[in-house]
């Protein structure tokens, strides 16, 4: 078995990761544009979280993905699969060129995560499934004493699924201090604002009431995300990271607009979005220089 050091992510500075986030946003838009399908808004809102996970936090690598001691990540909000595929491709789990087959006839790159793709732990896409699965994985890791941590990413709209709260109760009951649930708290779902569809606020108090240690962070702040996701819980309890994010982050006309939940940009919109992201990239490079 490989040592945990072999699975450690590469060392990147915050600025380098911020730059990578923009690159990953561009790749996500390209994958969705070329496929003519996808979940644009939620993908852009969770890119920074995935970037920090795979490039700073998770002890998992393409070479050691089969190691029992690896950290596990299950994407419960499976509809943001384009962002996950992009991050995995960038991390070397499979060739970037594979993304061109996204949602194509007979492609393994389905519109929700499947284990046919190297780096995907479980098939997800129906909401409310990731957290119960991760409770099972965290229990297995504790039974085996391997020190592995288990992470899942949920949408805030997804929290209306009752199975999440069944799992939330079980996780604290079983003292799963190796489990981290991340909420992509972009406050929008397909029909509009989550608070108008079926309010789930106050989220932090709900998770605390279920026995979790709660950390509320800016979901686009690389440093804050890194700290929240890296530090283990202070007691024998699971951790909930509420990442306040912006749906469609990085593209002015997509930000905070519910219709971009699964909107696909026109050629003009696509070009405009890429130009905006390129400009942001230039600004970061100038600061870094």
């Amino acid at each position: 078995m490989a040592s945990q050091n072999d699975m450690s992510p590469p060392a990147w500075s915050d600025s380098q990761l911020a730059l990578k986030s923009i690159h990953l946003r561009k790749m996500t838009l390209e994958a969705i544009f070329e496929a003519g399908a996808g979940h644009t808004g939620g993908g852009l809102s969770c890119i920074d979280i995935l970037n920090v996970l795979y490039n700073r936090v998770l002890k998992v690598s393409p070479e050691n993905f089969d190691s029992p001691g690896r950290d596990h990540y299950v994407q419960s909000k499976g509809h943001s699969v384009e962002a996950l595929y992009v991050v995995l491709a960038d991390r070397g789990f499979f060739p970037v060129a594979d993304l061109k087959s996204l949602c194509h006839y007979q492609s393994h790159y389905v519109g929700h995560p499947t284990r046919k793709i190297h780096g995907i732990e479980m098939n997800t896409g129906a909401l409310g499934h990731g957290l119960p699965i991760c409770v099972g994985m965290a229990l297995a890791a504790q039974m085996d004493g391997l020190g592995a941590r288990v992470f899942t990413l949920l949408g805030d709209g997804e929290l209306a699924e009752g199975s999440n709260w069944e799992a939330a109760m079980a996780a604290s009951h079983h003292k799963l201090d190796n489990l981290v649930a991340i909420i992509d708290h972009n406050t929008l779902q397909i029909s509009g604002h989550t608070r108008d569809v079926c309010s789930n606020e106050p989220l932090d108090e709900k998770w605390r009431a279920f026995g979790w240690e709660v950390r509320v962070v800016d979901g686009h702040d690389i440093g804050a995300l890194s700290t929240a996701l890296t530090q283990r819980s202070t007691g024998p309890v699971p951790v909930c990271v509420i990442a306040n994010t912006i749906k469609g982050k990085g593209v002015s006309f997509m930000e905070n607009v519910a219709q971009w939940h699964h909107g696909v940009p026109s050629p003009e919109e696509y070009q405009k979005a890429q130009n905006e992201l390129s400009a942001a990239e230039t600004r970061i490079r100038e600061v870094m220089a």
Partner: protein
Amino acid sequence: MSAPAPAMFSPAAREMIQQLGLTRGRANQEEFAVFLESLARENSNIIVVTSDSRGSGKLGPFAKSLPRQLVEVGIAEQNLVGITAGLAACGKKSFGVSPACFLTARSLEQIKNDICYSNVPAVVVGISAGVSYGALGTTHHSLHDFAALRAIHNITLVAPADNFETRGAVLAAAKAVTPTYLRFGKAAMLDLHAPNACFEPGRAIPVRSGSDLAFIASGETVVHCLLAAGFLETKGLHCRVLSMHTVRPLDEAALHQAARECRAIISVEEHSIHGGLGEACAASLMQSGLHPAFRIVGIPDEDTVTGSQADIFRHYGLSMEGLSDLTLKMLG
């Protein structure tokens, strides 16, 4: 509380049990618990997940002797199946145990996606299945589970007829690399098989030979077919009994052989007549060009009558008398 349950077998059926020399065993779900505990003592990778169901699942002794190998999640069947899947994905041989009525309805999406679509080798164990809960009513019956699960392409569905089949099914599930559903009832079973019988998933077990009519049955109905075959022998009719314990994949070879060699077939199951063993047999026969006289006996398409499991079986003809009458009608 409910009225005292009448005996499952009529006086005539009890006489036939004696004639056939059938001995009484445990309830299949109790045999499951005892046998799984013996396996789990040797294999710490075996993990049982329960949803406040250790009592009905007879898993109290397992919980006491192997507490680290039992995970309690409370009354939360969706969570139970998700956790069972997560454990299996991390290399555990996980058995998620809950009443079949809740497990295969409320958590159907978790069985479909978390276990089957992800193709993890988890075992879903439906206890107190069929109409085991009798007069507790339709909320507590599972007459849909075969129908729902048969449409999922990679799960093996097994409803054992006795304790021998139960042990075989549990052992096979423990070794399986794909998903399994095991369906157990809570009534004490009679031992049906000869000592040299062999259990293999997907292979029907011949219980009695004959060529006038074949009973193709699963689970707790097999014994009633055997008793009917014994009774019909006294009328000069030789009836075959096949225990089709695996509803998916179906043993089509044994079914087709029965269709070629017998004048008629009756399928029998503790399930809705829709979507279960009977319709699986009918589809296979039709598509193979075999057209024996054929009837499906199960719970008909109506609001299920109130009563104990014995009452319900008798009401719908899942009894020695009911099956014998139908056979005599079919064979003229």
